[in-house]
């Protein structure tokens, strides 16, 4: 396991622990307003300072990890649950079904991702659920396209012919044989997408489409800090750093898993 992957996995595990144990770790209530110390810089009592409403930034960061990580998790789950079956179906069946599905994916790719998400948010109204679905719509075809490529390779292997002449149907061959043989590929993709989805969700939150105040979330924290960047410049750093660090961590872990997948594919 390369050092970069160890770093990535360690950071991810760290963030997950922080998110899970947020009430124990956070020194203050993340929504407690204290207007007398608005924009206060870092101090012994508030190591990362306080925001424009006097809320403790460290506590908001710790609690913000929950939705900031839950969002991409849901996106990746949706992308996997919908994209993997579609990708396998397209790759295994080929022909008109592949044409139909692949062209549908192309239609989604044709839109700039954030614009597409903005349209969905504009239609259904801002909120955590809406941006998760909006981003998932972008990631489903991404996942499906990668899985389709893997499924094409896999379904041309001789053992698939052998299964067919044993009388097994397409559904069984895909679900019990091709899917499991693509596991490494799929896991590698999920880790990569997790990082990107986190960034996309933070971006949508930053634009005010996502989590609504006072619920903490890194993207909306960054937006809020950005509003007052001339008054309290240091407040921008913690949420930005958390986003960058987690995206880098997921990319490093994802790269490593994808490497494993391509290596096992060559064997």
């Amino acid at each position, binding site marked *: 396991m390369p050092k970069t992957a160890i770093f990535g996995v360690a950071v991810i595990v760290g963030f997950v622990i922080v998110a899970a144990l947020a009430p124990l770790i956070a020194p203050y209530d993340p929504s407690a307003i204290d207007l007398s110390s608005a924009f206060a810089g870092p101090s012994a009592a508030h190591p990362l300072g306080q925001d424009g409403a006097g809320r403790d930034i460290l506590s908001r960061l710790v609690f913000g990890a929950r939705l900031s990580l839950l969002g991409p998790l849901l996106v990746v789950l949706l992308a996997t649950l919908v994209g993997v079956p579609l990708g396998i179906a397209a790759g295994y069946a*080929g022909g008109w079904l592949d044409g139909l599905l692949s062209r549908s994916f192309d239609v989604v790719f044709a839109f700039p991702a954030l614009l597409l998400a903005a349209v969905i948010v504009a239609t259904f109204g801002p909120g955590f659920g809406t941006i998760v679905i909006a981003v998932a719509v972008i990631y489903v075809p991404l996942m499906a396209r990668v899985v389709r490529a893997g499924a094409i390779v896999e379904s041309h*292997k*001789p*053992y698939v*012919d*052998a*299964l*067919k*002449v*044993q*009388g*097994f*149907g397409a559904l*069984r061959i895909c679900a*019990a*044989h091709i899917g*499991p*043989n693509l596991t490494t590929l799929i896991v590698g993709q999920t880790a990569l997408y997790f990082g990107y989805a986190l960034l996309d969700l933070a971006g949508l939150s930053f634009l005010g489409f996502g989590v609504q105040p006072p619920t903490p979330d890194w993207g909306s924290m960054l937006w809020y800090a950005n509003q007052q960047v001339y008054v309290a410049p240091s407040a921008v750093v913690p949420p930005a750093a958390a986003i960058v660090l987690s995206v880098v961590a997921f990319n490093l872990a994802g790269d490593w898993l994808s490497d494993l997948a391509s290596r096992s594919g060559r064997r």
Partner: protein
Amino acid sequence: MTQALLALKAVSTWIEVDGGAKPILIDVSFEIGRGEIVGLVGESGSGKSMTARTIVRSLPEGGRSSGAILLDGEDLASMSVPALRQVRARKVGVIFQDPRSAVDPLWKIEDHLTEGMRVHAGRSRDEARVEAIGLLEQVGIHDGPRRLSQYPVQLSGGLLQRVVIAGALAGNPELIIADEPTTSLDVTTQAEIVAIFSALRRDRGIGMLFITHDLALAASLCDRILVMYAGRIVDAQSRDGIFSRPGHPYTRALVGARPSAGTRGERLAVIPGVPTSASDAPGGCAFHPRCAFAAEMCKSQIPALMPIDGGASACLRIVDIRETLRV
């Protein structure tokens, strides 16, 4: 007359590529009786494997075939897909050349052997397990319980081929199609696998199409041998007939090219030229450019398979050749 287990009637196969059709098999007809082992021999590209794939309708992309493929009187070629799946699951077992690539690498031996029993026959996991151990016993694997929990990578090629054979037996088939089942194995293992096939025919009365490029191997196992050249069956002889009175000049040349312990130190006979596939075959008899007996008519007329002396040969000059050589 009893019905043949498998009968191919005027089967032709071709691959559709870019609007054209590339012929693979041309007018192939033969029968396999119950409990009969028929060998199909030929060089690479002659269409042996495609014959197997045509029978089980597992052609590569663009593959089409015509003619009738009767298994127990039912035509596989025109059968609906659900009915075909039933036949594949219960009546026909197929064994491929490379056992390593013929099994899902992620599945344990137990899962590989019992998948069909559970899915097709509705057996419980425990019943299927007992049955699988019995099948392994039949192919000479006596530590079944241990093997069942292993993965394909943990087994040697010979052992894995036995597992594949056991898997082909799982549906209790009447016909086994073995496509070069021993080619990727060493000679000792090869002998053991051939012994297993002989035992299966004896004990279960299974009919078999045994595809190989090894004439001597085919003669040691099969009752009858079909020789294929450029997508056609050019010779059909009994096991003994193939050596004592080979009909077609091609078979004659193949027999002559065998190494033998009696001719130590001499150069082996070779057939001049290179083998051809059905799509590149010249006009007339496809073998004529390489044939020692070729005459002018061989370049224009396509010979049909004609019965002669208990066998059948597709050669225009077969009568002349027999009389000249007095065999």
